[in-house]
């Protein structure tokens, strides 16, 4: 029986980062479907249209024009039907303040964008194979920031 593909959605305004993201997933052995949106507003539009399939994992950049990742995170946590979507923060910044904020607002994992395609690949692999039941309990602060 063929395993269901993992549906991954990335919200990032940076074209290069979207490219790296796709490149990394292309070379991962696990079957994934990757979709990208260009900013927070576009993301919320996508998530609120019922015809769209909800992702398993949402990768959320923090620093985006129009609507920031943090704002999106707040909105998503207010929408009950999105409760099952795992949220991974995917940001250049790894400041204590941002990590703390994201954790408090209910993100599941925090990834600092690496500067190497191999590292990125490994990180993404780890995220999609993660035991989300454990990770979504929202109590595990120690493993929140994912690094290799």
């Amino acid at each position, binding site marked *: 029986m063929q395993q269901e593909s993992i549906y991954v959605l990335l919200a990032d305004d940076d074209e290069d980062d979207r490219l790296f993201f796709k490149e990394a997933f292309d070379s991962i052995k696990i079957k994934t479907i990757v979709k990208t949106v260009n900013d927070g507003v576009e993301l919320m539009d996508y998530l609120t249209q019922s015809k769209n399939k909800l992702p398993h994992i949402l990768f959320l950049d923090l*620093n985006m024009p129009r609507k920031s990742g943090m704002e999106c995170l707040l909105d998503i946590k207010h929408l009950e039907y999105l409760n099952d979507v795992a949220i991974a923060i995917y940001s*250049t910044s790894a400041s204590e303040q941002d990590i703390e904020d994201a954790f408090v607002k209910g993100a599941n994992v925090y990834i600092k964008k690496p*500067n*190497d*395609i191999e590292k990125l690949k490994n990180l993404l692999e780890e995220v999609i194979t993660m035991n989300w039941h454990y990770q979504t309990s929202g109590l595990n602060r120690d493993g929140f920031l994912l690094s290799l």
Partner: protein
Amino acid sequence: MGKYSLFLHSSFLKTIFTISFFLLLFISSISYNHTKSLKILTELLVHSYKIQIQLEQLLSYVKDAETGQRGYIITNDSTFLDPYIRGREKVNKSFIVLKELIKNQPKQQANLQELRHLIDARFIRLANSLASISAYGTTQLLGENMVKGKEIMDSIRSLINQMIDLEISYFNSHQAKYNREISFTPFITLLLLLFSLLIIILSFLKINQDLNNLKDSNEKLLITTESIKHAEIIGEFCTSIWDMKANKLIYSDNLYRLLGCEPQSFEPTIDNYLEFIHPDDKSIISRGARDILFNHDTYPHFYRVIRKDDKQRYFQSMGKFIGNSTHISVIKDVTEAHLSSLVLEERNRELEQSNKELAYFNQIASHDLQEPLRKIQTFISLLTTKESSALSEVGKDYFSRIQTSANRMRKLIDDLLLFSRTNKIDKSFEETDLNLILKNVLLELSTSIEEKRADIKSDLLPVLKVIPFQIYQLFQNLISNSLKYSKPDVLPFINFNCEKITAKSYPILKTSSNNVYYKISVKDNGLGFEQQYAEKIFTIFKRLHTSAEYPGTGMGLSICKKIVENHSGFIFAEGWPGIGSVFTIFLPAE
């Protein structure tokens, strides 16, 4: 109240003077009584003598009459009868005098009455004798008469003597009575006089002492006043004393000077003072004065004055009530302090601005600069993994060099950020076991320690109030440093040595000598360095080796220095080329 007890209390003085007054009054009355008694006694004596003399005279008149008659009888010369004739007259006069003298003595009156009868009887006998002579010559009858006369005369004499004795006894009894009264007087008077004298002398001594104390106090007061005047000039302040009951103000000399005037050159009134106040601040003074006068409320004021020379100054005043109706203001010229605080505020604003800019720069460095760099690195990694087959060997070499440069740039940015974030602000100090921190650092560095087969030992480190992650950074930097500059052919050895010391045994510490520190020395057997570089190595970006020999940004030790300074500590380095180096950290024990 201690100050006032130096002087005789006015109530004490009053008591002493009241006692003295009554004593003197008492003495006067005693003296008066004494004198009065003496006078009475004298009068009594005179009176008594007068009676005695009068009685003696009476007797002598009777005798004269008798003698005269006897002479007449013998000689029959009628001139001898003169005393007899005048004697009767004199006797009568004498009786009147005596009657007057003894009018208050009933017993003597009775005696006098009897005497009168006897004398009358004697004169009758005399008259009878004379009659019988003129009728019959010397006869038996005359002789009989004379015998009888002699008997009467004896009775008279005896009665007079009796009366004189009585008078003397009268006088004696009076004298005894008064003597009793006045015998103690001189003694009591003397005693009281001496006592009064003593009190007066004591009072005098005390008053004299008080006067001396007063003189001393006056001198001290004078000195205090002078020193206050001097202090006012040096300290640029002045005082205003307001007697609200009398509505009278006293301005100290320096108040006039601070206003640019000659001392006491205008009448001290609020209106005159207001003349010097900046027009916008006049209301502060008038409102303050109203509150003092009507609400008994005083508070500090800050206002501008325009001096006589038109220069603007800033004054600050503080008030205080003394009793209910006196108010003292101390006014200080705070122009210098005020202006410098303005400058300081401006500096602070500038500093805040530059801090903000620095924070903004940090933001740029951390995000905006890292973003393109990260992309360059990622693209390089993409190229080397996916497209390396399309590159020549030279191209690959170039790419490797680009990668090295990009990595170095990343390290520089990271260290720069770490350095700028190493601030005390907002960082909390916690009781931390430094042994635990060291253990974690060794765990973190375990790969390179094992790689270099380094031996790291440590004394027991203290538990101190520190910023934990900064101390972590400090230990990490120091150990990494020692590992990096270890000798290639010798196994690295790093030793943490710790002892508690007081600053006075280490003159190199520029701090109060009683401060207690933990001295932690990190000693290695690495390459060491020339002692002349001991201070330079802590300077930012200062390196003793090229990047090619030993990669690094030149910030590790600068960060160490900043961390130690954040903890109010000191760090020093000592180096011996080819032997090793010692980094010594002093962290305050408290």
